[in-house]
């Protein structure tokens, strides 16, 4: 069942004392909890990508930080293709590796198996560069998602020609940045309908200023971010023709130096403008509230989302935002270093946050792990958001060193199922050891979420540092009712990044989602929206209220269940305030 919109604050509050352990389960519950949710279909889908971190032996910091993945439909054939970011030799002494592009050739419309084909060469993906992450957005409004690839070194903007090929337009678009960039996100800064770009830089690491660092037992190891200076991030404003200008100074972004690893776009203070939340490693996170005039005001400390429940900055990596408590605003979740908790900041609707990680049972199980990619997703389409984090250490794991492990950084991934009721939230770590691909131990980094087989549930592509990219296919979500939306700005097919869509059901329940591709860690997600609706009465009527960036609202519906629908700006009905 869906959560009602009102009263969720008290629902969260009523969860005090409910920990992950949560008491004894019945045998039925145990069986339910241990049934396979995902299946690793990497091999059968023909995906043979292995990340290379370069392994110079010098423990250059970028070697342990990459790399990401993007899910996007490059050829408008209705299914998600896959872009995987590659590392390679970092010091330029050996030939560079290339990012890889895989076309989805599955016949998913008839329930066929997933199948991917490497089309890197024919697509014109350039070689060179030590890759970190990727963001997606349609920069020129032609209806095709373009790619912005962040690197240790010059970044690249790859324009999607719409015919399965890409052109490097970094120079003409003026979005170059040759520092060490990690997160990036396209968003609409001024509500003009064209996409602007945020690029986060990590630290002032260069091969020339590399420092030797050591583990707790004195072994050579990767440095922490404290070894290098913080740097400023950048914002590029789209002039409306796919050519950008650097407005980092004017926007205020340049006024703060930080160590960015994650970014998420949302309207946190409900003023109709797209804000940015930047997850920093080891220093306070930033909440950049969009002032509506091309400028941002940094508000994280007073808003309560700069520092964790201990009043300390954490090593934030991946980040996601979602309406976890179904009260119509977006809450923040981010992954952290081993020894710290992952952190959930709950939004009170006005952009003020409170760290409720402990109260919702998400603290303890995350402490032994270093989390990176993450997302809220409704795995079973039961209307309740679950949480997936992919993990992998950045400094050696003592236990693995003692075991003589050659790459002692790997950790299992984690899924926290929302096993609460409509009146009580509760997260429980999914720990099945039977056919649970999440239990496999890798040095995971990126995680891109999307419905690869168009069956109405979210699948996951996980990237692993010095390891294979893996496709985890959701095998349970399609059993429940669902509704999918592609929210577009125009007939060309430009995704309306930033638009907020509240699904309204005739039983009075509502579900809030926002169109975005940013979030997770160095990865880009499916821009489509998915709503899990549980075992719903199929006669129920469903409508959607869209709030476009800038605040205009439109009503669309009725909408069909168990299929994706396109909704296009200007083609709905005016929405009233009560909609």
């Amino acid at each position, binding site marked *: 069942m869906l959560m009602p919109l009102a009263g969720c604050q008290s629902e969260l509050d009523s969860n005090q004392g409910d*920990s992950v352990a949560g008491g004894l389960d019945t045998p039925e519950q145990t069986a339910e909890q241990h049934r396979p949710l995902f299946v690793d279909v990497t091999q059968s889908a023909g995906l043979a990508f292995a990340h290379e971190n370069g392994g110079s032996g010098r423990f250059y910091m970028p070697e342990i930080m990459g790399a990401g993945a993007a899910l996007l439909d490059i050829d408008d054939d209705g299914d998600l293709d896959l872009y995987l970011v590659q590392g390679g030799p970092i010091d330029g002494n050996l030939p560079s590796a290339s990012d890889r592009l895989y076309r989805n050739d599955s016949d998913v419309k008839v329930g066929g198996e997933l199948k991917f084909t490497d089309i890197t060469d024919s697509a014109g993906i350039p070689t060179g560069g030590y890759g970190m992450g990727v963001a997606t957005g349609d920069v020129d409004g032609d209806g095709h998602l373009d790619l912005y690839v962040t690197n240790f070194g010059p970044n690249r903007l790859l324009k999607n020609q719409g015919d399965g090929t890409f052109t490097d337009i970094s120079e003409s678009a003026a979005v170059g940045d040759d520092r060490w960039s990690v997160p990036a996100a396209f968003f609409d800064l001024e509500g003009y309908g064209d996409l602007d770009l945020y690029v986060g830089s990590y630290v002032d690491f260069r091969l020339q200023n590399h420092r030797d660092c050591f583990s707790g037992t004195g*072994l050579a190891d990767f440095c922490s971010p404290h070894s290098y200076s913080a740097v400023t991030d950048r914002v590029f404003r789209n002039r409306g023709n796919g050519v950008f200008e650097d407005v980092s100074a004017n926007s205020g972004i340049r006024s703060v130096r930080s160590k960015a690893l994650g970014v998420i776009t949302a309207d946190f203070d409900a003023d109709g403008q797209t804000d940015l939340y930047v997850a920093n490693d080891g220093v306070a996170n930033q909440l950049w509230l969009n002032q509506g005039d091309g400028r941002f005001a940094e508000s994280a400390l007073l808003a309560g989302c700069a520092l964790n429940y201990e009043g300390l900055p954490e090593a934030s990596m991946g980040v996601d935002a979602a309406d976890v408590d179904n009260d119509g605003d977006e809450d923040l979740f981010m992954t952290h270093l081993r020894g710290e908790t992952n952190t959930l900041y709950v939004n009170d609707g006005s952009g003020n946050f409170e760290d409720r990680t402990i109260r919702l049972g998400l603290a303890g199980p995350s402490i032994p792990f270093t989390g990176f990619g993450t997302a809220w997703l409704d795995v079973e389409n039961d209307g309740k958001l679950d949480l997936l984090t992919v993990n992998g250490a950045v400094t050696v794991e003592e236990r693995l060193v003692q075991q003589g492990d050659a790459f002692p950084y790997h950790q299992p991934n984690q899924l926290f199922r929302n096993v609460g009721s409509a009146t009580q939230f509760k997260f429980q770590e999914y720990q099945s050891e039977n056919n649970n691909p999440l239990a496999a131990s890798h040095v995971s980094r990126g995680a891109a979420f999307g419905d690869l087989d168009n069956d109405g549930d979210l699948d996951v592509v996980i990237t692993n540092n010095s390891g294979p990219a893996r496709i985890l296919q959701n095998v349970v979500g399609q059993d429940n009712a669902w509704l999918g939306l592609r929210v577009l700005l125009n007939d060309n097919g430009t995704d309306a990044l930033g638009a907020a869509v509240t699904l309204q059901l005739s039983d009075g329940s509502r579900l809030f989602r926002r169109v975005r591709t940013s979030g997770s860690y160095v990865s880009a997600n499916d821009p489509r929206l998915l709503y899990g609706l549980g075992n719903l009465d199929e006669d129920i009527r469903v409508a959607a209220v869209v709030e476009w960036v800038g605040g205009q609202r439109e009503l669309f519906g009725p909408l069909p269940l168990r299929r994706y629908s396109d909704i296009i700006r200007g083609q709905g009905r005016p929405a009233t305030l009560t909609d």
Partner: protein
Amino acid sequence: MLNRCAPVTLLFCLALLGLAACTDTDQAPTQEATPQTLTLIARPDPSTMDDTVAKLVTEAWEELNATLGRASATAEETANAYARYGLTAFGNGLSLPAEMAFENASALMPKDVRWIYFLALVSEYQGNLEQAEQRFNQVLSFRPSDPPTMLRLAKVYFEQGRMEEATALYEKILQADSGSASAHYGMGRVASAQSNYREAVEHFERALALQPSADRIHYFLGQAWRSLNDLSKAKFHLQKRGTSEPHFVDPLFDQISGGESRIEGLWTHMNAGSQAFVDGDYTVAAEQFRLATENLPDDSRSWQSLGMALNKTGDSQGATAAYEKALELAGDDAVIRHELAKLLYSSGAHQAAQEHLTRALEKDPKMLAALKTQAQMQRATNRADAALNTYDKALALDPQSSDLIIAKAEVLLDMNQAETAVDLLLAANQINPQDPDLLMTLGLIMADIERPADAVAHLKQALLNAQDDDTRSRAHYALGFAQQRGGTTDAALASYAKAIELNPRHQAAHLSLARTHFQMRQLDDAMAAYQGYLSRWPDHDSVVVEAAQLSLMLGNGRQALQLLEARASSQSASPRLLGSLARLLVLSGDSSIADPQRALLLAEQALIKNGAPAHAETLALSQAANGQFDEAVKLQQHILKVAADEMPPTVLQRVQANLQRYQSGSLGNLPFDAR
């Protein structure tokens, strides 16, 4: 999981020898433990750790081995040997062997709660909260009211979301000791987590009153006030936030943190030092970094950090030595070289500074900070062309940096190329039209080259673009400067006052306000402004002299005397101030102020500090006031002999006139602020 009942190795056999002469019977080797309950601890593998750690841990293991091999060792001695090894291992980041060692110690002496407490700390370190909870509870079964155990267990409950159990423990602690800052802090955390913000504020304020140094409490107070919608109090506390939690006495924990670990000690001190440095407490930071260097003398990072902290404390000699040691250990490290270069330059060792800077840039030609330093040094040594060239290199790396563009404009001003500087800034302003610093620099230069209308326009735009009070204050100050240049002095006064209102510590605004009132002969307002200035910066001697002079103009010689006297006894009193006071004591017509003998002493002090002719003149004046006309004549003649050629005509006339007065046995005359 732990490797129990592993195959018997030599160590294991020795262990049994130590406990029960290596018998093959089932007889228990001690009153509590059997061979089966003990865990084999393998010899540390030195390849998994660096030499220092390997040496420490191996020595501890061998010591344990020796105890196990001693047939006469009692169970207590063996347990102690395991615990010692555990402490060494844990302190050096090896929590797994430490856990095994403490488990063995506990198996041998199960009633010794120290080992259980260490095991609980290991569990907490490993993030295994459930096990930590179980072990802390086990400690409490022996010591039901042990405060550190209760505090740690309460925190574990809190982190598990078990607020009622945490509260019960904190309340129990407070019943026994209502002055426990840690328990009040814990209660506040629980209350906050339960959205009971009023109660949280009460507990946090109590904890802060008990331990004012625990400045992390400010963060929680700030958050609680924010939740109570009192943004003023929230901002106040958030600004004061630090990272120190309330401290509580925990002798067992101190055995670990202060124990045989060198790596862990290094980290403890480095972390504490870094935090103190960030908080601006440089003396504490230096002490912590020094302890870190003692822990691991071969670690370049701790030496570099020590150098930074010592530099901040003003110990440039110590800082130089620390940087040089860091450089010796790290090899050719550009960052350390750059830090050392800055330090050497500020100490006057310009050539050595330049050498280090050059090598830093050879190592890392794109090091922006080093390029900036290079340009600053070139500018300071009048090599403006070179400075321009260096700023161009830096701008090639960061073309939109307002800081760099402004710095380059300042070099152009040095070269009397104000118009070029304006062009540069206007071009930058086209790219960054919102940047208030660019606009302010433009405005100031335009005011200086007599384009006050343009200047005011840019400065008003800077005001509109400023996003915080500090920037707004600076913009108001610059606007005041331009208005003053443009002749609208009343407007300038208002701008200076606004700058001070927005930032009461804006030093230049205070001074400009006072001086502008003075120029406008608004003497009472000027005095009020000077007093406002001196209440904040009482050590600024030239301003003290200005204020004293103003007092004299207002006919208040007593106030002038008080102002000067307040500074004269200071070691750092300037010769200018001492000379001014001497002249006041000689020339005052008020007998309650005049004191020629003291004036003589002050004039001598001023001359010793600075041999300028003006100070010699003051001494001659004082000598004459004390009837020492021969000495005064000789000194005045000497002044003429060595400095007449460089004197402006009015000064030359004054010196010659005074010479004639001294020759005729009369008192001379000098202005109060003679320079």
